[in-house]
């Protein structure tokens, strides 16, 4: 049996995240100080540290605001890869696999899990490099499918509903000015034209007043 891997991260990266107790009861964690050890579902701890470091270079914390690590992007990616998406539950994966035109989309055999595992193997030691060295490493692989997935997933994990493990404390939504999945904009759709309509964001669980599970939790 695989040894359970944990990732130690700042507790604020879990603000608003939905976790499950061993009994399967959902618990919404609130942001706090200190660090916590989070059980990983797919990555090893070493892999998770690489993903955390690389996603932080893709979407860094800078003078414009928080970055991927603040939002807990690595937890989002870990859960997506552990769920139906990561193992290609919803992709047509019957052979033969043949190269084709770009308009036919990805035709490869490898699942996102396999692409990550192979891609991360190429980045051993990445987490301990300097920022400039990390950028150079990523620049060298930026055309690869692995990097394209990592970049896409970093944005997803930064701006997803926190039910998926990212966007901790709704930090991504606060940064861009997205109010969350509010039930109605009927009173404002035709007003304030050309002016930003901004509110303190709310997650779907906040709005519905009950925990909502992502697909990765219900179709394992």
């Amino acid at each position: 049996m695989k040894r359970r891997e944990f990732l130690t991260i700042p507790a604020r990266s879990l603000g608003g995240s939905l976790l499950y107790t061993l009994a399967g009861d959902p618990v919404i964690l609130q942001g706090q100080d200190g660090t916590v050890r989070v059980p990983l579902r797919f990555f090893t701890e070493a892999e998770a540290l690489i993903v955390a470091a690389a996603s932080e270079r893709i979407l860094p914390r800078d003078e414009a605001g928080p970055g991927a690590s603040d939002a807990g992007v690595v937890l989002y990616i870990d859960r997506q890869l552990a769920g139906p998406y990561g193992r290609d539950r919803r992709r047509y994966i019957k052979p033969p696999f043949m190269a084709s035109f770009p308009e036919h989309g990805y035709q490869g055999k490898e699942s996102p899990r396999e692409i990550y595992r192979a891609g991360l193997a190429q980045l051993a030691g990445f987490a301990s490099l300097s920022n400039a060295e990390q950028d150079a490493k990523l620049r060298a692989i930026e055309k690869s499918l692995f990097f394209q997935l990592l970049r896409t997933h970093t944005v997803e994990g930064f701006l997803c509903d926190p039910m998926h493990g990212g966007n901790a404390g709704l930090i991504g939504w606060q940064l861009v000015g997205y109010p969350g999945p509010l039930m109605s904009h009927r009173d404002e759709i035709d007003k304030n034209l050309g002016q930003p309509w901004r509110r303190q964001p709310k997650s779907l669980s906040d709005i519905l007043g009950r925990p909502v599970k992502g697909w990765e939790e219900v179709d394992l």
Partner: protein
Amino acid sequence: MVSGGTGSMRVPVSVFNNGDGVTRLVAALSLRLWRLFYRMPSGAARRLVPRASGVSQAGLIPDAGIIEPVVKRLKPVDVVIVGGGWSGLVMAKELVTRTALSVAVLERGPARKLAEYAAGMDEVDYNIRLRMMQDISEETVTHRHSTAAAAVPVRQYGSFNPGTGVGGAGEHWGGVSYRFDEHQFTMASHLRERYPAKALPENLAVQDWGVTYHDLEPFYWKAEQMMGVGGKAGNLNGKIVEGGNIFEAPRSHEYPNPPHKTNYLMAEFTRGASELGYHPYPVPAATLTENYTNPDGVSRPACAYCGFCSRYGCMIGAKAQPSNTLMPILAPKKNFQLRPLCWVRRIVHRNGRAEGVVYSGPNGEEILQPARIVVLASWTLNNTRLLMLSGIGERYDPATGKGTLGKNLTHQVCVGLQVFFDKPLNSFMGAGGLGMAIGDFEGEEKLEGGVLRGGGIRSQSSGDGPISAFGRIPPGEVQSGWGSEWKKAALRWYDRMGSMMFEGDHFAYRQNYMDLDPVYKDKFGDPLVRMTLDWTDHERSQEQFFVKMPPQQNLWVAGGSGRQPRL
């Protein structure tokens, strides 16, 4: 027999017992209708071993094998409808409310409940992972550009998203509710009248429909009332009405509901289009603009512009969805049955008459449902495939032009244009059909460059989630697609991009068609449908026409709010 190198597979065989002790077994696996006859005790179910293996010349046949699990035979119904989307449920409603016929609708996807849609207001699961769509791992389509190439399967969704579940794609659609124009029903005659033969594209295979716009107008009106479409008529019984689409075919009535509210993007589109002398009109939408009760007595609330519309189910039922528009009428009817998770695999037929269907039930059991009438309502691709798998009809052969099944496959010619604005658009608000359009290029008068048919140009505010909206940056702003500079540009341009779309007619050509794929199979081992389709010079000229005409590019720029567009 082994074909395709995929090893042994179960053969899908349809069994029909006609009640006189003779059981007829249709193994509709071949290019030609292929029939085997067996004798078995009436009503008995048992394992069958087909004894023959008539492989076609094209090698399209799954391996002969053993049928299991055992076929279960149900009591006959009058009508069985394949597919529980708009088409199937509209047909069911007409039948069960106007006749005493017993109707069973078989839908391969799950049941849907309005109450479950609120928990689906999530961009990752629904807009990105496409949770409402057909499970593409079980069945997809293959595509090739010409008969000279090998087809590959569509492995993840791209340009079209087939729905599943009760309501079908009618649950996740955006509600944009257009009618065809008059010429689209008589396109072959129209083109011949308008253009010399040498101006028409090579291999053009367009035919007239055989029904006209005027034949169908009363039914368009009926459907629009049922859905509660909101809009503004531009041609009422031949009288041109400013503010509507003045280029549209005559309507017998004004829309059942008024147009949607007007947001910033729509206001700017209207301003720019008007300044350029075009005729902007509100996109007709089946997302209710006001609280509404339709002629069937079904009430639905007005759209809340929440922005979770296309690719989502509407959580308040403002969007016309079969589940909230037709099911309230159908559900109480005693002569109506709806069976979700039932995947129809063969039509059983004899002497040119359909006698029922065989389907895979919720637990994978093979079930025979006899019926006097079989209605196919499972979308063009699946209807065609089901007919081919069942050995019904004459399959189209592009070499000879003979046969009709699978012939004249068409798509749509869509070209998108993005325009960046200095001001925020609040694009997270919206509705699938919220937008403005112009019809000035729908006819032929303003066309150039060998374009025979134009199309509509419209802009919609369907509701952008933050993930989709992040990273839309004007070309040339930043070098990299990641890192701090990119992040700052993405933040600077967040919520600043509007899009416009040209949607033009795609003609039917002799070389574009559907047949069964010789290699790729669905989860049962049945061949997938194969699309052979490529763009021609005409579609490329349509694209260039939209791209290059400065007035169209500059709708918003003319209005003063937009920057230079990009494709």
